[in-house]
Structure formats: structure tokens, C-alpha cells
């Protein structure tokens, strides 16, 4: 039953994803990529559980590496996206966009 419930969540999320992302303008496609890429680093949650529950060499290595790589993905992804988005600003203040 839980499997079915997870599939249900997957379907809803896919629909929401398509709706939201098709509204992102072309000019923001690179930040969209790096930002969504950072979201995919959510694997970190799984990695933390793996690393934290590990009690033998192989699982410790696998878990710790997974945490490291996922953290690179998350931290790097969000920071670089923020750096890019900070550059997208309107130049002439006080001038309404027509």
C-alpha cells in the first residue's frame, strides 16, 4: 500500500513540476537548471540516514561518500544559483517597465 501511496505522490509532483517550470522564462533557464540541480541534492537526506546508521567499513565508506557528494551538489548548487540571480536586476531604477 505504501508503494502505491508513493507512486501517487510522484504523479502529483510531476504534474506540479510541469505546470510550474513551463512558466519559467528563457532568460532564467540557467539558474533554473542549477537551482533545480541543487534541489536534486535532496538525496542528501537518504545519504545522511545511510551514513548515520552505518556500522561496518563498507557502509561507512558508501554513506560518507554519499553525504559528501550530495552536500557538494546542495551547497554548490544553491550558492552558484544565488550568485547568478544576484546579477539579474533592473538597471534603471524609477523607470517603470512598460
Amino acid at each position, binding site marked *: 500500500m505504501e508503494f502505491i501511496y508513493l507512486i501517487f505522490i510522484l504523479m502529483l509532483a510531476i504534474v506540479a513540476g510541469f505546470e510550474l517550470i513551463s512558466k*519559467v522564462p528563457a532568460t*532564467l533557464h540557467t539558474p533554473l537548471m542549477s537551482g533545480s540541480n541543487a534541489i536534486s541534492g535532496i538525496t542528501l537526506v537518504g545519504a545522511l540516514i545511510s551514513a548515520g546508521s552505518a556500522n561496518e567499513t563498507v557502509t561507512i565508506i558508501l554513506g560518507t561518500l*554519499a553525504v559528501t557528494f550530495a552536500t557538494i551538489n*546542495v551547497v554548490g548548487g544553491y550558492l552558484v544559483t544565488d550568485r547568478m540571480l544576484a546579477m539579474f536586476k533592473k538597471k534603471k531604477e524609477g523607470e517603470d517597465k512598460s
Partner: protein
Amino acid sequence: MNIDQLINLVYILAALLFIIGVKKLSSPQTARQGNGLSSLGMLLAVVATLWHQDIIGYEWIIVGLLAGAVIGTISARVVKMTAMPEMVALFNGSGGIASLLVGWSVYHVGSSLIPSTTIPIILSVLIGGVTFTGSLIAWAKLSEVIDGKPHIFKGQHILNVLILLILLAAGIFLVIKPVGMFWGTDLSMYWIFILLVLVSGILGVLMVIPIGGADMPVVISLLNSFSGLAAAAAGFVISNNVLIVSGALVGASGIILTQIMSKAMNRSLGNILFSGFGSVVSSEGSSEQGDVKPITVEDAYLILEAARSVVIIPGYGMAVAQAQHVVRELAELMEKNGTEVNFAIHPVAGRMPGHMNVLLAEANVDYDKLREMDDINPTMPTVDVAIVIGANDVVNPAAREDQSSPIYGMPIINADYARTVFVLKRSMRPGFAGIENPLFFKENTRMLFGDAKHSIQGLVAEFKS
């Protein structure tokens, strides 16, 4: 309420923040805030997970978090905007291998390997592995560690089929019998699993290696989608809804971008992945070429000085020449001179979706001036001068006129409709896709040979004097 329910509530909140974050990306004004909300969601999810009942020790978690945070922060800080496609490819790859490792570690523990767990494990290893090695190859091609040409060899398709068959067989074996001996042999099922890991990696290499550099926007988008799907698969492995929601969001985003990119190249995804573009281009059609008409910086200045409207069409060459800052300076000088200046951005200009927009934003160009292809094309016949900087295929009229051209049917920016076209180019060498460009020989085209940055610096100096 027990701790497990509380953690799951936080996960729902995190998923909600991701969704709101993506929604705020629909406008440049709110985008940065959206990214902040999304990262807050991530922080909440991570902190909540630390209370998970299965976690018994924190020392390795801390090691991994610190190492990852340091590497991530440094790379995000030092990367140049022109190298953004490479960086995204690498981040993508680390997400992929993280999903693979999560799947592997759950398999290694080996408890309750029923099909509803083993199938997601196999998927997270497979997709994660392909994402990892595929991204590494994409990175190598983008940073020119290996050359960007499509690499095609005999029997490649047979090898691919063979690999898919191995993966399929290994997957089926592992679902039926996840652990123990391989049906009466000395071979442990664990080796079948290792085989699955290795072959997934090989598949990623084989998938990206035949794809040419000009097709990289599609590949990056697709790998982006894969990294999301890998995370969603890992979510099924550990029955975690926040992984599934986020993975699906990212998967959808990658697929949409892939579609946009394929459409902008007028090719199907299958064609891009399997045809090895650029390798089949024949050298026919050279008969219709005329003479090219070079122009000096001084003469170009005189024409620009008199122009009322100018459209600048940037391509990957602008990024290579690092010319975005002088381009902005030139645009400002022309505007001061009373000229209307716009930038026309083709969806596949550069090496990733939106690549040119980021570079021009870095150079302080107002995003309102960055116009999309469909938006600018109807106005092209009224434009006095179109300046093509390091773009080639995206302004190639052969896509419109020459049915034998490999890019026939691809939507282009109609630079040739402008009264005068300046093409900034180093030499007459054909562009990335290796296709002749009749634009260079048109009556209204003037070639401004030389390094794009130097040529524009020359124009800027003329305007200032």
C-alpha cells in the same frame, strides 16, 4: 505525536518550500528570493533527518557534510560565469553518484530486499551511474579536456544494445534473487550488483561521447532531468516522500528544458542522442558561395553611428572571447548616441539553456533588453544593423532556405533580414557544427574579421573619440 511523524511533517514543509521556490523563478524580480526559500527547505529537511531513529552515530555525517560544504562553497565562489555549463555538469554528476551510493548502501545492508525496494535500488544505481559518468564526459567536452567533436566508432550501436541487455539481465536477476549465490554457482549475487554499477557507468560514457559540443545544451538538460529521477528513485528506496517530490520536480524541469532545446534545433531527442551530429555533414553546396565582403572597424563605426536600431546576436564565441563586458559598453555608447539596442538570444546559443542571458546579466545588461527569438524576428526587417558576435548556426539562413542542409528546418534568428549584418569572426572556418553559412556571402553582410573582443574594443574606442 512521535518523532517520526514530526520529521515527516518537516519534510512536507520542505517540499512545499521547493515548490514555492520554483514558482518564484517565473520572474527575475522574485527569483533570488525563491532560491533562498528553496535552500531553507533543504536546510529544514537536513536538520529534521538528523533526528531520524536509524541514525546512531554522527561522526561520519559531520565528516561528509564538512567536506562537501567546503568543496561546494569553494567551487561555487571561484567559478567564472563563462564556465557555468561545466560547473552545472559537475554538480549534476555529484548528485547522480550520491543517489547511486545511497542505493548501493541500502543493498549492502541487505535487509528486506523485496521487489518494491530492489527495483528502486536498481533504478537509482542505474540512473545515478549514467548521470555521474555522463556528466563527467559532458564536463570534459565543455572544458575541452577531450575535444568536443562527436566520437563515433564501428559497432557502437551493437555495443549499446549489448550493454542494455546486460543491465536488463542483471536487473531481473537481482529482483528475483537479491542476495545469496547465483543459482548453484560460486558466484555471489553481490558481483552481479557490482556489474550493474560498472555497466551503468559505462553506459553514461557511451551515451555522451558520441554527442557533439553544439548539442551540449540538450545533454546538460537531459542529465539534469536524470539527476532528479535518480533522487526520486532513491526516495522509493528509503520510502521518503520529500525525495520523491523534489526528484519529480527536477525530473520535470530537465525534461521541459530538453524539449525546448530539441525544438530549438528542430531535431528529435533520439536524433541528438544517437546520430552523432556533425559527422555526417557533407561539403556540398559550396558552389553557391560568392565573395565575402570584409569591413574595417572604422567603416563599421560609421554605419553604427548612423544606425537607428541595432540588434546584437551573441553566441558561444562571445563567451570564448570573454567579450560580454565590452559588448555592454558598446551597447551603452550606441544608446547614448540615440540608437535603440536589443539583444536577440537564440534558445540554444551557448552551451546550456540561458547561457547567454547569464553572461550578459553578469555584464550588467538589463534583462528587459534580452529578447527571445520569436519576439525579435518579426522586427528584424526594420533593424538597421544586426551584429553577430560568435554565433553561427543560430543565424544560418540555410536552415530556412536550403533543404539539403543538415540544419534545415531549425528555427533561426533572421539576422539576414536586417539592412546590414556585421559578422564578427576570427576566420572563415565553419562553426561548431561544421556547416557552411551562406549568411557570410549575402549582399548585405560585412565580415569584421579578428578576435571579437578586440574588434568591439576598437568600435568602443571609435565611439569615444
